């Protein structure tokens, strides 16, 4: 969950902001010295903005967004004050000692007290500063490793007689199921499951209480949890990601996973979700095959979406960042919505809609209405070294803002992949698309209902060498998307 603060450029805000930042850091898992360092970094940045960003305005305001993932925390500070370039304000200790000129001291502390300090110039839209810190997952890894070494051996399911008649019940998960879910994950995967949150009952409970997660749990006749399947709701749209699925080894091949998936789809419909989607890895076709069994359709191929991972069952490390497909399942029929498709991708997008069974009518406006200013949001995934840019509105400054943002991003972070989502229900998209293409983006696919309950065209800019032959796609239509991307990538 993101936390946003909108604050005025008044020095009285510094202490409360720092108090909040420190508490937030501790809650996110930083220890006291690290929380203090990160808070000093935030204090430095907030002070600099109050002192220097708005020299001719007695009262202005700026925004802070606090973001947390399992492995990382990030504070994004956005302001629209005077242009600024951090590289021009380097601290010089000799000058400080001899002349008492401490310019750049705060920036030096920010750089030292964060793992990443990123400055994004958004042109007329202002500036963004991103301060991030990795959470110390090594300690957790070590604990997990230690615990694994002490753990008694799991019974080999292939040698265990599978009970002939199993009666089980499937019900919607509630916060009180959290501990059973964590135990089930542990019993099934030991500590090799990729989503570490699921080893922490309190974290599961938190997402269930926050209604971010929707899922089902299967119990045997003794009430023991034997299966779990859940989706995570997207924050900015009414769709959810199919993300977590497990069946205890002793109870596999009994149709439990299928029953849960069917129940989950029903539950999602009851909650009036517009659709479900899954990101399926492409180093093997297994997950894609499961998705397609339940009528999910491949709509996009995201190259280099996650860093190289050692997957259990693979002899060697996969030699390149892992690409994923987006598989989407619409849950309700939609009335023909009006979409504005860029000409070069009109055919493939219409075909994708056709595969999904979603009726659309293609429209075109020769003089589309533009917003006064562009509204573009950037999200950085530090762990996977990717970024996602979501365009909410186009303004006359779109080219400058996007170019500046990309330049800042590439210079400082050089992500493996940058994805950009363009709103297909915005009449300016066909015209503005040329700007995005000119910046080196290629096709990725359709991101149905991904933001603001509307469809987006996802494009991608890949900054790392990939062997596309290693990417396995299950469906014929997915193959078609891959062929188009391969054509542009080469």
């Amino acid at each position, binding site marked *: 969950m993101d936390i946003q603060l909108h604050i005025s450029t008044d020095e*009285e805000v510094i*202490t409360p902001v720092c108090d909040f930042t420190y508490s937030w850091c501790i809650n996110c898992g930083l220890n006291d010295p690290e929380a203090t*360092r990160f*808070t000093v970094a935030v204090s430095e940045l907030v002070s600099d903005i109050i002192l220097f960003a708005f020299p001719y305005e007695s009262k202005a305001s700026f925004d802070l967004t606090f973001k947390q993932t399992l492995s990382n925390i990030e504070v994004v500070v956005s302001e629209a004050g005077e242009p600024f370039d951090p590289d021009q304000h380097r601290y010089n200790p000799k000058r*400080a000692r001899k002349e008492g000129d401490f310019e750049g*001291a705060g920036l030096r502390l920010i750089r030292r007290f964060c793992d990443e300090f990123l400055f994004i110039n958004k042109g007329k839209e202002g500036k963004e500063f991103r301060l991030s810190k990795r959470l110390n997952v090594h300690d957790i890894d070590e604990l997990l490793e230690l615990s694994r070494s002490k753990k008694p051996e799991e019974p080999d399911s292939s040698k265990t007689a599978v009970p002939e008649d199993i009666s089980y019940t499937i019900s919607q998960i509630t916060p009180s199921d959290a501990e059973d879910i964590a135990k089930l994950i542990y019993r099934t995967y030991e500590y090799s499951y990729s989503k570490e949150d699921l080893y922490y009952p309190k974290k599961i409970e938190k997402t269930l209480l926050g209604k971010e997660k929707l899922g089902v749990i299967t119990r045997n006749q003794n009430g023991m949890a034997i299966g779990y399947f859940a989706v995570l709701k997207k924050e900015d749209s009414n769709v959810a990601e199919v993300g977590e699925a497990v069946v205890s080894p002793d109870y596999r091949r009994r149709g439990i996973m299928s029953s849960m998936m069917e129940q989950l789809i029903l539950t999602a419909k009851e909650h009036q979700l517009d659709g479900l989607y899954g990101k399926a890895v492409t180093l093997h076709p297994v997950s894609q095959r499961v998705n397609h069994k339940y009528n999910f359709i491949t709509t996009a191929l995201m190259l280099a979406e996650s860093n190289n991972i050692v997957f259990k069952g693979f002899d060697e490390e996969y030699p390149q960042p892992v690409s994923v497909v987006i598989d989407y399942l619409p849950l309700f029929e939609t009335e023909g919505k009006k979409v504005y498709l860029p000409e070069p991708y009109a055919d493939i997008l219409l075909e994708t809609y056709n595969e999904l069974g979603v009726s659309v009518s293609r429209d075109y406006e020769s003089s589309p209405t533009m917003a006064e200013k562009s509204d573009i949001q950037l999200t950085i995934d530090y762990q996977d070294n990717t970024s996602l840019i979501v365009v909410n509105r186009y303004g006359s400054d779109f080219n400058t803002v996007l170019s500046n943002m990309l330049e800042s991003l590439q210079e400082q972070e050089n992500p493996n992949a940058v994805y950009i989502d363009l709103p297909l229900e915005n009449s300016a998209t066909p015209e503005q698309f040329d700007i995005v293409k000119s910046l080196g983006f290629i096709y990725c696919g359709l991101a149905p209902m991904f933001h603001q309950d509307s469809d987006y065209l996802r494009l991608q800019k890949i900054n790392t060498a990939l062997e596309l032959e290693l990417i396995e796609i299950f469906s014929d239509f997915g193959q078609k998307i891959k062929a188009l991307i391969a054509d542009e990538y080469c």
Partner: protein
Amino acid sequence: MNIVNTHKDGTTIQVRDCKTFNLQTKNVLKSRLTDKITKLYIDFSHCKLIDSEGIIFLYEWQHSGNELELKNPPEIMFEILNILELDDTWDLNYFITEDN
């Protein structure tokens, strides 16, 4: 609210119960300084946070010929002095109490 609790004693200003030392603290303190004040005594026993605004203010205060005495300065202060490469040129007058 960052309340700065000060007490004037002749030529000394004592800062008590300082919880955080930042831009606001610095400005409040500066507003209470007069030409007659030549010494600052700051009790950092309850202070977790000091940033460059606070540290530079104290550095300039001492390096302009005034006296400075600190009680229980926080660990982060020494770390910042090291990062800003001021630790070897600043003879900091401080003491740590046993109960801290």
